[in-house]
């Protein structure tokens, strides 16, 4: 995962509450076997008419927001399906920072696995950012993770809260599987104590029979 420290970029406001992950990457693309290439599919049904022509009414297609890398969202962004294709799409499109009043739990977790910084701010501050992004052509923000601030070029500076552990994960681009494997001794001793098992008492119809012990 690529680390995240600072990012400055053009801001795109997406003025909709409860944007669910089905809207970010519709199900037909969840059949692909890769983690890459979802950027052109992001917000597919909102973004394209008949699956190909850019929909001029959708904000992502407006000329003023081309090249945006910071996404302003409304409450409960990323609700619904757990599909990680959603943050893969967000990242592959070019968004590195998401700013909103709240994010759905699974989506929020998934962001940290992919080097995306989700910033949670009080509703009033998000409202203010929406106004600024809509009023000022080419409105840009800088996100500074080490200092936990968001700043614009007009003098606005906002501090945000982030869990210190998650902050480190992003800053260092840590591989959390590797970190967990560092606790190998504890995992093994847990397994010794608890003997987790799935014993089959009546045969079931497995296509692959599973491990032989």
């Amino acid at each position, binding site marked *: 995962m690529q680390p995240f420290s600072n990012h400055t970029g053009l801001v795109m406001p997406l003025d909709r509450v409860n944007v669910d992950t089905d809207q970010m990457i519709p199900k037909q693309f969840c*059949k692909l076997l*890769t*983690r890459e290439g979802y950027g052109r599919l992001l917000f597919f049904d909102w973004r394209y008419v008949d699956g190909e022509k850019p929909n001029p009414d959708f904000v992502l297609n407006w000329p003023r927001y081309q090249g945006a890398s910071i996404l302003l969202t409304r409450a409960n962004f990323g609700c619904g399906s757990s599909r990680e294709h959603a943050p893969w799409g967000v990242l592959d499109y070019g968004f590195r920072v998401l700013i909103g009043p709240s994010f759905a739990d*699974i989506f929020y977790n998934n962001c940290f696995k992919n080097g995306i910084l989700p910033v949670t701010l009080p509703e009033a501050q998000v409202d203010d950012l929406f106004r600024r992004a809509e009023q000022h052509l080419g409105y840009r923000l800088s996100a500074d993770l080490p200092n936990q601030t968001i700043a614009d070029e007009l003098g606005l500076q906002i501090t945000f809260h982030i869990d210190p552990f998650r902050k480190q994960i992003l800053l260092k681009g840590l591989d959390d599987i590797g970190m967990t494997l560092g606790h190998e001794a*504890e995992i093994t001793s847990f*397994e010794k104590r608890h003997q987790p098992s*799935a014993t089959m008492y009546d045969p079931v*119809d497995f296509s*692959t029979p599973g*491990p032989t012990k």
Partner: protein
Amino acid sequence: MRPRTMYEKIWEAHLVHEAPGQPALIYIDRHLIHEGTSPQAFAGLKATGRKVRRPDLTFAVMDHSVPTKNRDLPILDADAAAQFEALARNCRETGVQLFDMHSRNQGIVHIIGPELGITQPGQTIVCGDSHTSTHGAFGTLAFGIGTSEVEHVLATQCLSQFRSKTMHVLVHGKRPRGVTAKDLILAMIGRMGIAGGMGHVIEYGGEAIRALSMEGRMTVCNMSIEAGARAGMVAPDETTFAYMEDRPFVPRGKEFQQAVARWKAIDSDPEAKFDATVELDAAAIAPQVTWGTNPGMVSDVTGKVPDPASFLDPDEQKAAVRALEYMGLKPGTRLVDIPLDRVFIGSCTNSRLEDLRAAARVLAGKKIARSLKEALVVPGSRMVKAAAEKEGLDRIFTDAGFEWRDAGCSMCIGMNPDVLPSGERCASTSNRNFEGRQGKGGRTHLVSPIMAAAAALAGHFVDIREWDVDGAE
């Protein structure tokens, strides 16, 4: 000892590592996987040279993209075929136990876990699927995870997690006739909103929850995620134990008695504190119908499509305007006057034997409305299908004009050929009415199985309470 909630007990029993300021490492008892969210996780393992730590605790099934008819023919959708191949290959290479689409135990992942007894009280269960909350009906801590986390669990059998907050949802009183578990949970979501449970694990209790069958409890826990909750749980009781006995993965005889004794201790202590409590009166709940594009946009069947101006919050007003435009509905329209094109009975929310029996009781001896283009019933698993056929339910459905299909997710998500065409309106027993969920441009109304069956007969929604059928019990 400090009184603890069921969530806290299970959490603490699975702690592998805990340090201040860090997420805890918890052990995962059962890892369920399907073709949709696992290929990238296996690819990640391969790329890093890591192994599946506990294939014996990992169960894979093909459900999301499987066809529900002519399963013996070649899969024409190349992307779906590649998914199936990838899952089969990954399972073969790693020793993970797979139910492929030809297994007689195949079905939707959240249906087969409980039905095979893979799901047991007190466990931690994860799956790369948000409706993993279903398994909480057994007093398990079960929740959905992303693909990176699937990879993490495959490699370590652990998950790095922050503790959630707890919420107690108490549903008091008795459900009126015609009001099902689906109506309880839809009414709850309508009241607290689709983000109302955010950050929380819900424990359901109260007389109306206790009175539910395991199937009903699964329906309730299944949709916890639609309230934004991390998981939903119901403490195990005699109903749970009776359901579990003799399932393939459940211990027998004396071992079963010992397990039951352990399971009984999982319940929250009487003095345990929850971070939030919500109370509902079951007697006041009516059959529910969604009118919008998320499960919180729901109303009593006696209600009308709301006027967006009636919402106080400007964001909600805008969302309602958009939803009505998408749904092709006008404010003030009575819900019972909404005509339907299709009916879908299926999904991990409502496709168990009890659901099919209830719908069949409504349909018995009757015909679906001529105006319907299609009515589908898709059993949640091949075992449900076989059991239903043994009782003759398939005949009741097909005589009424329904198509009787093979098991899978089907039109809940439309990843297989069962897609709701654009502009068409469907009464569905599934769990999500998001834009495009059942098919691009498709219009979904979520209802219970008996409401869906009644709507199929009438061609529009009806208040099932006004019908004199057994199914409404």
